């Protein structure tokens, strides 16, 4: 079947099988390998992308049913390679170790702040619970998100 996907502001016309999953379309067909396959079953959040601004799990999204505009981690960086402010905050607060969960964390963080759910450390802990991090960079990620949200309470 033919589908046009709008990804990071560009249209991509593809012929897909009904079984094709959005995560694999992004990574294997469009070479956007920033989004990661963690558990492949919607349990870890590493595959988080934005669909019409809302965070979703691309590993559970059939390409055939994808309707909104998708934003991936590649779409956050400026055209000249400049880091998005959230990416810079993650670097500043050492909010990553191995980096595998990081693209999903950053997109989830951007959405979390936009949703107005980053008003306190407790809020961020609850509203970002869908992104697992085995390296356990959690406290530093919370600090980065609060920094971006302009919240000055003691982090963690």
């Amino acid at each position, binding site marked *: 079947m033919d589908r046009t996907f709008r990804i990071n502001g560009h249209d991509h016309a593809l012929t897909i099988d009904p079984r094709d999953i959005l995560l694999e379309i992004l990574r294997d067909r469009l070479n956007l390998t920033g989004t990661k396959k963690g558990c492949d079953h919607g349990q870890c959040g590493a595959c988080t992308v934005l669909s019409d601004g809302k965070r979703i799990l691309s590993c559970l999204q059939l390409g055939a049913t994808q309707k909104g505009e998708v934003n991936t981690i590649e779409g956050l960086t400026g055209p000249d390679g400049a880091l998005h402010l959230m990416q810079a905050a993650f670097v500043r607060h050492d909010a990553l170790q191995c980096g595998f969960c990081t693209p999903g964390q950053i997109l989830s963080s951007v959405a979390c702040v936009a949703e107005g759910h980053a008003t306190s450390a407790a809020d961020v802990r609850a509203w970002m619970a869908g992104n697992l*991090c085995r390296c*356990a960079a959690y406290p530093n990620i919370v600090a980065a998100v609060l920094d971006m949200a302009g919240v000055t309470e003691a982090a*963690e």
Partner: protein
Amino acid sequence: MEPSLARSQIIGGMIWGIGQALFEESRVYPRTGHWTNANLAEALIPTRADIPRIDVAFVPEDDRANHPIGMKGLGEIGVVGPAPAIANALFDATGQRHRSLPLTIDARITAMEAI
């Protein structure tokens, strides 16, 4: 040598220790030997919502006995303390002495029934 990296490593270890104490286990189906919880929804690791504020403080010392330039590895030591600390806190609160992990609610109920 690199304070922020050292702090992150210790935080990582401590969170692993909390997970080990409270959540993590592998369960087997004895008839076939299969792992029954081989996925992240059931082999639980700590989520952000499970982790409270964590404070890390280093006691600085210059230890040349361990290594001539005073260097020490700390990648793994963070994981050692949390499980015993939590088990001791549980003993202090309930009088139950648990000797296996994780410290789950069903383990605590079983211990209560045994008393």
